[in-house]
């Protein structure tokens, strides 16, 4: 019994709900939520360490033994993501604290951010298919509120699309769960895996797996990313950074769980489809990233490209590629949060949303400019930053699996990432300054600090690869050997 497992989900819920009582006191709201996420981050690091020492941990809610009760299962993959997600939420919350959006703060901005994080952490930890759905819903409901909070016209138009598309995909999700339960008679992920293996994944189950593929593709923005650029562009900076860092990644997590733990018997069908979808995503994302001149659109299409890139690893389905994907997933959570914070800050400072409308920002805000350059290099996968190892391993894995087209598209898409962002950098930061020194909006240290920390993290993650690699190796090991997860999630000693 490991009650500690429930804290990454329950702590944000408790504090989030408690904060409802302190509506009139913004300072309590701000610092309590930041403090909570710091505690959650420390707890999740502790659990990660424990998982490395003791193997997969499990908590049976109410002491109902699996597969009858519901469980939380923590393996290295889940805990790596929980830790990274909590870390990014600390920094996004800090940014929100210093951005001082008092109108939104008064209407429960922080409680909903905490509930969002609770849903995300719960989705990473749960070992039960129905609970995965519930955690998705917790996360989505919070995101619906955050999407429309503030009530700007743009938010409401994009919000209604976002809500409709997500309700539709949740409905498909529920349908898929019903099919699973109807055919296999269980919803415990580990037991599902056992039963699918016993049945040898007949065509019926493969069809169901494709239904789940569609559901999670909608959430992750794999091929079905049409909703993503518009809705992310309508959000305030801190919220958009949190969305970009976390929401699509939960979909990606679910895809990894499903197609390594459950439906891994017919890779010639499912993983080929994932590969094709990854190609379409990367091509579409690249086109979007260079087609638009709107900053937030370019950033949003960069999210899309990264999703395609991560799934190249899943499509290749060997240890190296999966390791690469995990590296890249961690890197991407950090750096996409950073990118959106920076883009939001740039829009706030220059007052312009298109990149050719301002120039020479680096003379006004030198540090911001250099952080932006680091972000670009990191996103492009240039050593020593954190994107490099992931790209290298995914490339090696994909070549090892003989996926030459996939590899070529993946690395071409990196060039598009570099090009699309360098264009912003060259136009906005270089050249003659368009803002006179006496007119420039002061950039508060508090807003710059989270960006600086994230930039330091992406450099640190790149340089300190040795620190992270045992965790990633362990995570990939469990993903590639489903029997380990089953053993951890079902054994009743």
């Amino acid at each position, binding site marked *: *019994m490991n*009650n500690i497992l*429930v804290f990454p989900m*329950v702590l944000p*819920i*408790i504090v989030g*709900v*408690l904060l*409802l*009582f302190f509506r009139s006191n913004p300072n309590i709201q701000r610092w309590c939520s930041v403090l909570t996420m710091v505690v959650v981050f420390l707890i999740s690091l502790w659990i990660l360490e424990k998982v490395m020492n003791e193997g997969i941990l499990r*908590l*049976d*809610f*109410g*002491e109902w033994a699996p597969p009858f009760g519901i469980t939380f299962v923590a393996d290295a993959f889940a805990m790596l993501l929980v830790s990274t997600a909590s870390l990014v939420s600390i920094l996004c919350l800090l940014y929100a604290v210093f951005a001082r959006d008092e109108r939104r703060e008064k209407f429960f901005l922080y409680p909903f951010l905490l509930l969002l994080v609770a849903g995300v952490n719960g989705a990473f930890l749960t070992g039960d298919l129905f609970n995965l759905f519930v955690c998705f819903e917790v996360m989505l409901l919070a995101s619906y509120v955050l999407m429309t909070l503030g009530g700007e016209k743009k938010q409401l138009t994009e919000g209604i699309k976002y809500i409709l598309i997500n309700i539709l995909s949740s409905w498909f999700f529920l349908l898929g769960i019903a099919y699973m339960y109807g055919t296999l008679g269980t919803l415990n992920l580990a037991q599902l895996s056992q039963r699918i293996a016993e049945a040898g994944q007949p065509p019926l189950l493969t069809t169901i797996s494709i239904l789940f593929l569609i559901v999670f593709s909608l959430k992750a923005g794999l091929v079905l990313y049409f909703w993503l650029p518009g809705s992310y562009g309508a959000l305030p900076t801190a919220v958009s950074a949190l969305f970009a860092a976390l929401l699509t990644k939960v979909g990606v997590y679910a895809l990894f769980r499903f197609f390594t733990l459950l439906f891994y018997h017919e890779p010639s069908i499912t993983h080929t489809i994932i590969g094709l979808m990854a190609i379409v995503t990367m091509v579409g994302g690249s086109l979007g990233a260079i087609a638009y001149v709107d900053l937030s659109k370019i950033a949003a299409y960069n999210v899309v490209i990264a999703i395609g890139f991560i799934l190249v690893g899943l499509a290749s389905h060997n240890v190296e590629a999966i390791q690469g994907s995990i590296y890249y997933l961690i890197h991407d959570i950090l750096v996409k949060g950073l990118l959106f914070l920076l883009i939001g800050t740039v829009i706030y400072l220059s007052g312009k949303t298109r990149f050719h409308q301002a120039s020479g920002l680096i003379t006004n805000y030198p540090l911001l400019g250099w952080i932006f350059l680091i972000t670009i290099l990191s996103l492009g996968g240039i050593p020593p930053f954190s994107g490099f190892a992931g790209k290298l391993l995914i490339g090696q894995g994909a070549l090892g699996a003989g996926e030459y087209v996939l590899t070529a598209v993946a690395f071409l898409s990196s060039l598009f990432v570099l090009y699309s962002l360098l264009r912003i950098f060259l136009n906005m930061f270089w050249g003659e300054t368009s803002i006179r020194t006496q007119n420039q909006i002061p950039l508060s240290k508090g807003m710059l600090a989270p960006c600086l920390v994230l930039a330091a993290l992406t450099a640190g993650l790149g340089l300190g690869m040795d620190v992270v690699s045992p965790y990633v190796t362990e995570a990939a090991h469990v993903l590639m050997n489903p029997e380990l997860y089953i053993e951890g999630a079902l054994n009743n000693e």
Partner: protein
Amino acid sequence: MRENDVILQTVSKVAVFIILTFGVYLFLAGHHNPGGGFIGGLTLSSAFVLLYLAFDVETVNAGIPMDYKMVAATGVLISVFSGMGALLFGSAFLSQTFAYFDLPIFGKTELATVVLFESGIALGVVGVVVTIMISISEDV
């Protein structure tokens, strides 16, 4: 035009107490029979909604000065903390227990911790449903 709703108001005044009683009954029955926190909570909130329909929002708010958002929040907290309570006794999160007690009037009675959890749910449901109803009425 001034509406004449004497009948609605008179019936509501009586019916509200019947509904509330029934709600509490359903809540307690849920331990072994159909019912429980969610269903009991829905029934209880229907009593409040009936009041809001029969009288206007101001009158009811003056009579029952509650912020239903806070009612919902309290409910969620009670439920989560009742789940956390198990941690103090070294059991898994959300573990429940029960025991038999000899109470003065009721005699031998089964008392279960799950009632705490369920009462949280009931409060949560009442808070959410009434908040939704009031928000919709403000929109129109």
